């Protein structure tokens, strides 16, 4: 039988499951009863079967640093994370607000630059970013929407208060795991669902398709949508394929597309076929060798001309990276107040800007207590976790910060909340975060389909798949089932 008594990692960590060492929170009460009756072997064998099935199904990602083409599964943890409907609604409203503000910011910096003129954000900070794309200045995009798909990473701090850890408004991935996790959990551990009514996740592809259709240039009827992937060697290729397949649209690579007369076409067995909307999962830099990296073999020659001429919709728009540049993150609350006239519903994490000389000195003196991130980084690559770092790593980062201070920020170490997780045949608390996805066609939609990532290594604070993370199914209770 599973030992259900809480084992806290550190005293000041918020646990999602337990209110105190022996009492589960209201959401989890029913699950605790079910788990108490489950044989440990059943869970362990079930997980083994799931991981084998994931490999057979090719639900894998590629780790870039390792020898080429290492296919790995994203380990699955069977203990679900549960949100009450009320809690979820509050968070979703915060995410929705944030995405609207970030989108307004993008429209502003690529047009009038009001927020810069009025001095709310230093102009220098925006224009020095390599994520600011000059080619987008003055370009109108359909419905003025830039951020069609975003993933806003949230954590619960030591008080259980949700905070935004970072915004991902370029090509966030992870939704395929949300779909897959629900499916495998239902098939393998149906009993866990006893007594719960939870929001389904499997309409996400349809909601995404509607969003993409709304991104079509004006006048396109029954717009033709394609998913653009960098190809089979991309870390998230599986996800690209799942989304294309479940939306029923072609999964294209750059070489399958052709621009003629500033219009984009697919090369099909029946000749050229017009494309209206591209859901691209390829970075700005690679999308058109005529404008960006000339050595890109992944992109579409002449795409930017078609895009700027308004002949094709693109999700997300080019140049959205400036909105998730980590040096601008600390200004997001100001953006919310400036553009929406609202108070932020979600809190930020305190962030130190290394380009400021005084702050930089403070950061360099306290590297051991801080987390340092690259301003244009993502995926958990190239960050320093102070308390877990070696002196050599800190020296290395100090050198890099001195060399290019604009490209680094520092944050205090946040005590992410913990959640019971099956490790070596027993439940142990492990740190988790949450990535809800927001869709923005004509208005922002936050489907109840969020990814919970878990740091499987004891004491680790890094949940990224590339850094030893795993994932959990994430439940949002139906409205009337709150506190089930």
């Amino acid at each position, binding site marked *: 039988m599973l030992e259900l008594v809480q084992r806290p990692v550190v005293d000041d960590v918020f646990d999602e499951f337990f209110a105190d060492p022996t009492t589960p929170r209201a959401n989890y009460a029913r699950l605790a009863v079910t788990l108490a009756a489950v044989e440990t072997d059943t869970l362990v064998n079930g997980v083994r079967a799931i991981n084998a099935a994931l*490999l*057979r*199904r*090719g639900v894998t990602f590629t780790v870039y640093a390792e020898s080429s083409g290492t296919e790995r599964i994203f380990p699955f943890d069977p203990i679900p994370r549960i949100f009450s409907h009320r809690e979820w609604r509050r968070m979703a409203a915060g995410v929705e607000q944030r995405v609207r503000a970030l989108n307004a910011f993008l429209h502003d910096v690529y047009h009038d630059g009001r927020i810069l003129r009025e001095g709310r954000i230093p102009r220098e900070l925006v224009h020095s970013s390599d994520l600011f794309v000059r080619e987008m200045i003055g370009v109108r995009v359909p419905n003025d929407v830039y951020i069609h798909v975003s993933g806003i990473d949230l954590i619960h701090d030591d008080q259980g208060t949700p905070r935004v850890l970072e915004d991902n408004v370029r090509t966030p991935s992870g939704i395929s795991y949300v779909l897959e996790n629900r499916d495998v959990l239902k098939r393998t551990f149906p009993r866990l669902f006893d007594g719960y009514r939870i929001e389904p996740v499997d309409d996400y592809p349809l909601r995404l398709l509607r969003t993409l259709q709304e991104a079509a240039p004006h006048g396109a009827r029954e717009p033709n949508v394609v*998913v653009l992937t960098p190809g*089979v060697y991309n870390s998230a*290729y*599986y996800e*690209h*394929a*799942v989304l*294309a*397949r479940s939306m029923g649209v*072609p*999964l*294209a*690579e750059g*070489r*399958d597309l*052709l*621009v*003629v007369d*500033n219009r984009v076409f*697919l*090369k*099909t*067995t029946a000749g050229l076929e017009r494309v209206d909307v591209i859901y691209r999962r390829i970075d700005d830099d690679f999308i058109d060798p*005529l*404008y960006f990296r000339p050595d890109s073999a992944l992109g579409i*020659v*002449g795409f*930017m*001309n*078609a*895009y*700027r*001429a*308004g*002949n094709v919709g693109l999700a997300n728009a080019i140049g959205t990276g400036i909105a998730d540049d980590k040096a601008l993150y600390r200004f997001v609350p100001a953006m919310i107040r400036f553009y929406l006239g609202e108070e932020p519903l979600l809190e930020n994490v305190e962030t130190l800007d290394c380009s400021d000389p005084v702050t930089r000195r403070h950061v360099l003196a306290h590297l051991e207590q801080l987390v340092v991130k690259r301003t244009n980084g993502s995926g958990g690559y190239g960050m320093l976790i102070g308390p877990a770092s070696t002196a050599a790593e800190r020296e290395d980062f100090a050198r890099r910060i001195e060399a290019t201070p604009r490209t680094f920020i520092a944050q205090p170490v946040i005590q992410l909340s913990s959640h019971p997780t099956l490790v070596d045949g027993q439940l142990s608390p492990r740190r988790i975060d949450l990535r809800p996805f927001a869709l923005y066609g004509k208005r922002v939609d936050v489907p109840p389909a969020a990814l919970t990532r878990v740091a499987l290594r004891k004491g680790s604070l890094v949940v990224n798949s590339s850094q030893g993370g795993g994932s959990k199914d994430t439940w949002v209770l139906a409205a009337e089932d709150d506190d089930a």
Partner: protein
Amino acid sequence: MLSRHAESFFWLSRNVERAETVARVLDVTYTRSMDLHTGGTWEQRSWRAALAIGMLGAAPSAAPAPADATAANVLERCVFDKDNPSSIRASIAIARTNAIGLRAELSSEVWEHINQLHLDVQEQSGSSVAERGPSRFLRVVRDRCQAIAGVSDATLPHVDGWNFMQLGRFVERASLASRILATAASFDDPWPEWQRLLEMCCASFPFARAATHLQSPPDAAAFILFNPTFPRSVNFCANRIDAALHRLSQSPDRAYTDGAEKLAGRLCAAVTFADAADIVADGLHPFVRAVLTALDSLVGSIQNVYFPRVPIAVAPLNRTDALAG
């Protein structure tokens, strides 16, 4: 459908068909060599014949076929050799690479069967297979390849992608049936030799039933080449190729609108209007060579029509054009 996807469907099913046939050829050779149906001199010959089928398309730079065609040598080259594109392991890896490119097009059943077969074959080695006797492993490969073909037929819509799979499957099957026939030295080979060829084509029982009074080598060859209802005969394959091409081009029956259809039509005629007497008169090998040449041209033509290699010319783009538009 995307040209690239069409091409991947074609090669996916071609390689699955190849792995299946190579597995069967090796299994038949192995099991028949165990009781020496026709004596020692024939054993070397039959392994050499298996090698000829299992090393098709090996690059000239690859290691040459082993001089000593022993069971162990041939199995190693034809089952595990990564540098031999016709080895079972390589064929399945190629099929899987194509399947990965088709992840958004395939049913999960087809994909999972291919992926699992690949993962299982990767795990095997010459020694692990030899330990239990190669038959067991070769049969698993054969069964699983047939399962992939069956699941494809049962789960994929019978439209473009499936039609390209049909082309790949039947082109490869016709080609391998012809090559199996080509390993016969002549119609004077002893009957057990011809039984071996029939078995490699899955034709032992169908032939016995169709030809109770005619058990001569020319009749066996004619059965594999011309029988219209046996699904592994060249005739049957040619007609399936013709039908798939017509479904793709949507041209009416007996209308031949592109190069691929014309070549397929010609091949159909060649294997419809010939019989055992013709191959006796013309010689087996010239006839089989003609069939193989026709299949090669046909594949080239399918490629030109549906997935051309020649890049499509693009007019030079002026960066300011877009702003005017």
